[in-house]
């Protein structure tokens, strides 16, 4: 099957610093890929490029074979088909939960308000917080906010969901509720690309685990292989540091 998103020799610089070094990565429909690596390894930059939130200088980044261009005129159309969940949730602070969910469908997709609200309530049901529809983001816990953010992305019916460290800003007791929501999504067959340090999630949900270090993809393998017999010394070193002994 052809890839939904494909990176070929992708390179990006922040000034003199090369954040991505000739990254090759493809995401096929239904795949669940976890990207891990030490901080500063370029994993967030990579998925931000995929949603055109960052521009890249060299190589190619394709969505169904079309170039993703952060400065291009049709970039908002592209983003309607790619869901994005941020570390800091990025919910609209001045809107209620329901309004947060409806803004994209109404303004970007052109749905009527009742249609959008039906859809929003459906997905709030799905992330198990239908009772919070009338509240403002600041009135919710971090875990609830992140589940709202996931529902907000789902309201656009994206073909693929990108998660940028979705649990890193959460208190420990809230991590599980967000991971459970993501596991539900995976079971529904959603194509997912997840940057995370949650190795338990990687083991149980991912088809593929990608390890990045210093802007380059070092290793890509199925989780069984990745965790039991990593090929690269750098992967072994990283796993040693983050896995419980």
């Amino acid at each position, binding site marked *: 099957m052809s890839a939904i998103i494909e990176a070929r020799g992708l390179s990006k610089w922040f000034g003199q610093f090369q954040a991505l070094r000739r990254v090759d990565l493809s995401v096929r429909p239904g795949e669940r890929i976890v990207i891990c690596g030490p901080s500063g390894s370029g994993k967030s930059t990579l998925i931000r490029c995929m*949603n*055109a*939130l960052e521009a890249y200088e060299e190589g190619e980044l394709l969505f169904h074979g079309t170039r993703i261009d952060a400065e291009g005129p049709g970039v*908002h*159309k592209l*983003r*309607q088909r790619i*869901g*994005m969940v*941020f570390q*800091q*949730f*990025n*919910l*609209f*602070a*001045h809107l209620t939960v329901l309004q947060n969910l409806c*803004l*994209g469908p109404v*303004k*970007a*997709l052109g749905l009527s308000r009742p249609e959008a609200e039906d859809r929003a309530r459906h997905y709030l049901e799905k992330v198990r917080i239908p009772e919070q529809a009338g509240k403002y983001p*600041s*009135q919710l816990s971090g875990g609830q906010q992140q589940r709202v953010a996931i529902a*907000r*992305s789902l*309201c*656009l019916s994206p073909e693929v969901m990108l998660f940028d460290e979705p649990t890193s800003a959460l208190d420990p007791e809230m991590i599980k509720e967000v991971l459970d929501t993501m596991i539900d999504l995976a079971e529904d067959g959603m194509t997912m690309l997840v940057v995370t340090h949650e190795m338990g999630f990687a083991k149980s949900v991912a088809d593929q685990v990608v390890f990045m270090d210093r802007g380059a993809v070092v290793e890509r393998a199925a989780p069984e292989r990745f965790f039991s017999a990593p090929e690269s010394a750098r992967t072994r070193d990283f796993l040693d540091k983050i896995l419980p002994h």
Partner: protein
Amino acid sequence: MSLPEPPFDPPPPAKPQRLKRGDYLILAACAAFAGVLYYRLAYAIPYEWDWSAVPSFFVYYDEETGYRQNVLLVGLLNMLRIMVYATVLSLILGLGLALMRLSAQAWLRWLARVIVEFVRNIPPLVFLFIFYFFVSDMLFPLLGIRDLANALSRSESTLVWVLLGEAAFIENVIAGVICLSLFEAAYVSEILRAGIEAVGRDQREGARAVGLTPSQEMRYVVLPQALRKVIPPLVGQLITLIKDTSIMSVISIQEFTFAGSEVVISTGRIFEVWITVAVVYFLLCFALSSLSQRLEAGQQGARR
């Protein structure tokens, strides 16, 4: 092992705020100064106080036609008209300038910067002298406003009177509004720009992630939050605008201060009239700043 849970205790009593001896001394000094000032004004200078005529400067009774508006009321109403129109126009122009300042186009940013710096670095009075003649001599014939004003001044409609005041002054009022709006817009744009820049990058990226275009992002996500943040400084600017309407008196626009000076010249009641004028300005501006404080307090309550 589980520990026994301690009870919830009421908070200790708050310490009362008392005035200290030094505070009384300062208060006494202030009272003494006010007393001396009052004495000088009331007795030491040769001035006959007479407040009895002041109400008639606003409204007087005519045997034939009943109650009629007098000069001060006409001026007050003109000031209110100028204030309302200039507020609306300066918000629109200010938003335009703010968006230009934040534009991706370098020449737009540059143009807005030139306009803002030009306005902010010359005194309002000088700006007014330059622009009044430009606006009324060059712009009005060009835009056909002079003909419009003439047409309006012939109309007998009450609506025209409510909106624009005495027929003879219509052109002046329009010119005043345009000059004042141009001037205040520069300040409004700086306030709005600060508000827009204070909306976090996370909000903008959230907007992009749900597929909004840049203009939708600005309209539905950034501006609503920016405006909430800048309501207090915007109200402050509105208060400045109200006080600045008094500058219009130098170009013979019949607003409140101009009316005040006319009454002073014709009646000689210097202090009564100017104190009355000052009190009206004060009440209007103080009411607005109190309202702004309430809005702010309400907002903080809502945000929690």
